[in-house]
């Protein structure tokens, strides 16, 4: 039973309400009229601001109508005062909302006649708005009849909300651009990335720039300036102000002019406040127009040093997060397939694509490939570098139909096996360097592998002439033949080396020379002269020497320049003292092994950066080097030598004086030998020197060797000694 009071109130019609209802009726008629004669409508300029207030006003009817619908639904199922309050609310909101809807509608119709807007979205928006208005009017008339119960209220509310949503949505599309609402979500998807090889300048570079910065206004819905910046047809057509561009002449093109106008200029595009084109983007547009505004040319068809190509390549993002058309493999399966010698990893977080590396020749077997059938769709990169992969194994490789990259370098595959990977339609990079693949084997499969872009064929039998054919027949593929020694630019061999662990010896020693390069001849001398290829003997490993000797050696090989001369000091030291001590200290930074340095058979080398320099040279500067050696059994000594370094530039000098004292014991020791080596030339090259002196054979148990660093006035020079030679 309807509440009496409610009935009374719903029928309440004061003066204001009556006027409003009259106005509503008139609005209905006016709108119907306007819709009928829309085409004939011409909006005078002074009425245009009214039309433009449409986006301002439209929020009110939306709010009012929504509130009215809520109240309309809620008033059922309430009792007493509450019903009354909600009914009154509904009536008020509905009436006001409908009136405002009508006014907004008229304003919208005015605005649409201005011509800035057109297209499908406008039509949808207009008719949705019209429906909302008439629906609201109808509800107002019907909602307070007695038969109007909860179900009817729900139904009209739902209809109304749907209408409001539709109108609002299309309206928003008009003012903010299509997909404005969902854009944050849609654009969150990784952008479509085109491999540079397939990229078309217009479709993949120019169009996306326009879509990003221009099509918000210049689209089929909005048509600002009667211009659509969409496909090639609309671009060629231009807009209200004329053709967009003069192919080949960017400077004369309207588009470029508008882009280059100053920001204050009203005609500057995009309008101030909208995102502007970057310098790069403007450059790309200009270059593209200069390139005859070609709609079909591919990036890779441009010259290698073409500016457009360079810029376009830079603009196209690297192929990252390439969308793959397959689902991720089971994580557990991947984990189980991972072994010490087979690593399987996703290429990036959240990427279904997998790359597989197989290592260790000895652990390789065909099974390693077969076992991966469970992830055959996901593998996009397979590395079999240096694995003993047989032709049959490639049948298992062909199961990875999404493979992008296949490395078969230095594997055992031949032409026969290669034919089974013809089916790898997605293969982009194929490496067959160092295999027995031939020209015919390779050219057979290339025509089938449409995605292939890079092939490496270094160290194969493919001749330069074959390569030319390959390049001619497969323009999209870049072949890398790698380094080939044409013999035209010979290199200099490095000097020979020695493999004697030490060159200090007590009895005969074999000379062990070697050279790391295969097939090198070593020629050498033992008389201190420089070796040459005519007079010097060929080293055959049979030479032994028995006395202190400087061996000089030089390496020769056909197709190479001969090496520099290497010089090795073979130092004979027959006697090693039973005990040694130094009477005066060594220089604090040249300690080496102290007194033991001189008989440890470790030779120093030139160069302060060389570890052998720091560790093997014993040095003195401010005092003499005085070494006392004792022998348990007397030795027959007839010569004493010192091995020292000479580096004039850094002040490493020969000793000024060497004295050798010997005898049965300290007291009986007498001077056996005095040596005064010649001083070095200025700016001479650093060298290692041997200073030897002989005397009549003496039996000694006590030996004292004194070496005095070189001193001119106050200039103290450094003396560095690594070995002493007692014979």
């Amino acid at each position, binding site marked *: 039973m309807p509440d009496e009071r409610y009935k009374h109130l719903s029928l309440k019609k004061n003066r204001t309400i009556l006027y409003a209802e009259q106005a509503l009726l008139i609005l209905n008629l006016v709108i119907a009229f306007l819709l009928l004669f829309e085409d004939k409508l011409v909006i005078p300029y002074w009425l245009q601001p009214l039309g433009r207030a449409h986006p301002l006003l439209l929020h009110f009817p939306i709010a009012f109508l929504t509130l009215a619908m809520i109240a309309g639904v809620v008033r059922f199922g309430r009792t007493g005062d509450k019903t009354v309050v909600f009914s009154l609310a509904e009536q008020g909101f509905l009436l006001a909302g409908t009136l405002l809807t009508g006014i907004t509608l008229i304003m919208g119709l005015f605005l649409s006649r201005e011509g800035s807007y057109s297209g499908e979205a406008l039509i949808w928006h207009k008719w949705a708005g019209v429906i909302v208005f008439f629906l609201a009017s109808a509800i107002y008339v019907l909602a307070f009849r007695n038969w109007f119960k909860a179900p009817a209220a729900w139904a009209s509310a739902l209809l109304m909300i749907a209408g409001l949503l539709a109108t609002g949505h299309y309206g928003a599309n008009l003012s903010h651009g299509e997909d404005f609402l969902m854009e944050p979500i849609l654009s969150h998807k990784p952008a479509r990335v085109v491999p540079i090889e397939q990229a078309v300048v217009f479709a993949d570079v120019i169009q996306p720039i326009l879509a990003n910065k221009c099509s918000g206004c210049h689209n089929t819905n909005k048509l600002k300036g009667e211009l659509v910046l969409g496909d090639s047809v609309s671009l060629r057509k231009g807009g209200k102000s004329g053709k967009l561009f003069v192919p080949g002449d960017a400077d004369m093109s309207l588009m470029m002019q508008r882009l280059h106008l100053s920001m204050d200029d009203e005609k500057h595009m995009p309008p101030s406040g909208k995102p502007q084109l970057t310098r790069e983007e403007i450059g790309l547009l200009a270059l593209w127009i200069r390139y005859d505004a070609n709609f079909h040319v591919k990036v890779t068809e441009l010259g*290698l*040093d073409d500016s457009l190509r360079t810029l376009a*390549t*830079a603009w196209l993002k*690297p*192929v*990252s*997060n*390439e969308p793959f058309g397959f689902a991720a493999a089971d994580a557990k399966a991947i984990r189980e397939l991972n072994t*010490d*010698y087979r*690593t399987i*990893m*996703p*290429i*990036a*977080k959240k*990427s279904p*694509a997998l790359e597989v*590396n197989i*290592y*260790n*020749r*000895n652990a390789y077997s065909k099974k390693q490939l077969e076992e991966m059938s469970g992830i055959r769709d996901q593998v996009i990169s397979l590395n079999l*570098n*240096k694995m003993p992969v047989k032709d049959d194994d490639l049948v298992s490789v062909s199961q990875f139909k999404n493979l992008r990259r296949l*490395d078969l*370098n230095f594997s055992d595959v031949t032409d026969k096996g290669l034919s089974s990977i013809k089916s790898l339609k997605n293969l982009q*990079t*194929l*490496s067959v*360097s*160092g295999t027995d693949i031939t020209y015919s084997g390779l050219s057979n499969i290339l025509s089938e592998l449409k995605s292939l872009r*890079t*092939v*490496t064929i*270094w*160290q194969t039998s493919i001749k330069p002439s074959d390569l030319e054919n390959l390049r001619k027949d497969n323009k999209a593929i870049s072949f*890398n*033949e*790698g*380094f*080939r*020694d044409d013999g035209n630019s010979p*290199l*200099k*061999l*490095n000097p020979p*080396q020695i493999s004697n662990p030490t060159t200090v010896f007590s009895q005969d020693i074999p000379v062990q020379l070697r050279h*790391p*390069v*295969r097939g090198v001849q070593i020629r050498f001398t033992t008389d201190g002269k420089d070796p040459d290829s005519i007079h010097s003997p060929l080293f055959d490993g049979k030479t032994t020497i028995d006395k202190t000797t400087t061996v000089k050696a030089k390496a020769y090989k056909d197709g*190479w320049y001969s090496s520099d001369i290497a010089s090795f000091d073979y130092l004979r030291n027959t006697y090693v003292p039973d005990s040694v001590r130094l009477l005066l200290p060594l220089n604090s930074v040249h300690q080496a092994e102290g007194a033991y340095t001189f008989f440890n058979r470790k030779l120093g080398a030139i*160069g302060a*950066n060389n570890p052998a320099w720091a560790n093997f040279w014993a040095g003195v500067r401010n005092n003499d080097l005085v070494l006392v050696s004792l022998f348990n059994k007397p030795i027959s000594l007839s010569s004493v030598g010192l091995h020292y370094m000479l580096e004039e530039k850094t002040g490493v000098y020969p000793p000024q004086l060497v004295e050798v004292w010997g005898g049965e014991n300290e007291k009986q020791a007498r001077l056996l030998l005095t040596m005064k080596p010649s001083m070095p030339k200025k700016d001479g090259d650093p060298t290692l020197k041997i200073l030897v002196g002989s005397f009549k054979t003496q039996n000694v148990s006590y030996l004292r060797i004194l070496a005095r660093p070189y001193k001119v006035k106050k200039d103290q020079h450094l003396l560095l000694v690594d070995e002493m030679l007692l014979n």
Partner: protein
Amino acid sequence: MDKEIVEHGFSWNRRRFLSAMGIGIGGMALGSLLMPDLFDGNGLEAGSAPGIPHFAPKAKRVIYLFQNGAPSQQELFDYKPKLREMTGKEIPPSVRGTQRLTGMTAGQSSFPLVGSFVDFKQYGNSRAWISDLLPYTAKIADDLCIIKTMYTEAINHDPALTFIQTGSQQGNRPSMGSWLSYGLGNENKNLPAFTVLLSRGIGNGQGVYSKLWSNGFLDSVHQGVQFSKGEDPVLYLRDQDGMSRKDRREMLDHVSELNELSYTEFGDPEIATRIKQYEMAYRMQSAIPEVMDISKEPDDIVKLYGPDCLVPGTFAANCLLARKLSENGVRFVQLYHQGWDQHGNLPFEIAKQAKDVDQASAALVTDLKQRGLLDETLVIWGGEFGRTSYTQGTLTKENYGRDHHPRCFSIWMAGGGIKPGMVYGETDELGYNIAQDPVHVHDFQATVLNQLGLDHEKLTFKHLGRRYRLTDVSGKVVKGIIA
């Protein structure tokens, strides 16, 4: 007590649940507004052992040919005809600015400019100017991206070197290679992800210390493993005499059991690391000989790298080895070549230094290319800072020196998704200041990480209460050099 707990459970009615949940979700939403990546789960921390790139990488591996001591850009890549013209003239104060000087030149009373003793020519499609000291590098100009505008903050070797390697001048931070090892994990489980090779040239050298390839606060599996030139490329890897492979296996199994026990007891992650390292060392025992073996290299390789590549311990040999390691899945191969510190005697020393490295550096790029590996391997060549445009010490007709210069220096990169055949950045006419497109050390690091699919802002590790990155708190990816 139980009663209270049960009652507490009952007191969770719908209303309370919803309101608590509302606050919770609200808090999370607010948090995500403040930290946009809060729920991306892209941080690597918390034991995500096999690192996976944040996004699809261009490069999978890096070979860093570090030229230790700071090669002089004026003699190698930064052609300055104007500097030559002005040789002997004092550097204008407006150019020198307030640059802090090292102790070696701070006391110098005059700073005469000195142009390069060597000529430059243009090469490749990019018409890059390259010095006559680098004939082989010049040949691969179209594969190189030469950056002329690197700059750093430190003016002495150790801090500068530490800075470029670890992102901090002070040390104790993980090296670049360790960050990569942490971020990407091992590609080959039989080799360490980060290896180090040393060599030295004839020029004035500066030390390199193992702190440069330290794992810092990262797990010690990420430490750089130094390969030496002797019979044992990796120290302590060989079995002692008399120990068979089987004995070794058994020993490892027992040791590992013991380690497991102490791990369960103490939970120290370093114990787990230790177990892993023993296992890897065991696998390395068979992998290393295979990698180190150069006897199977084709003869052309010797011609390509130069004969020194067969002499262990030389830069050329290290380049060849670097290629072999990289090809076998070592993520980061770090070379150091010492001897570039030409304070004096520059013309003589730099010529030798350049000769030492030129052929092999170029060969490495060519070699990777002919194996189809260059596109996924990033090769970097460069030092820790540059050298001054004015001379250090006396300037004579044929001799001069250059001091340390942080404001600009040249490096090159090749492969790994870096734009080939380009020169990036420009210095002023005297080669003293950057005129255009500066690249800070952190920018450089961010770019390297980016090429490997790592976001330098997300590759973090929490230590002592804060999250650390290789790029500290700055660094921008240098988009201009990315292909």
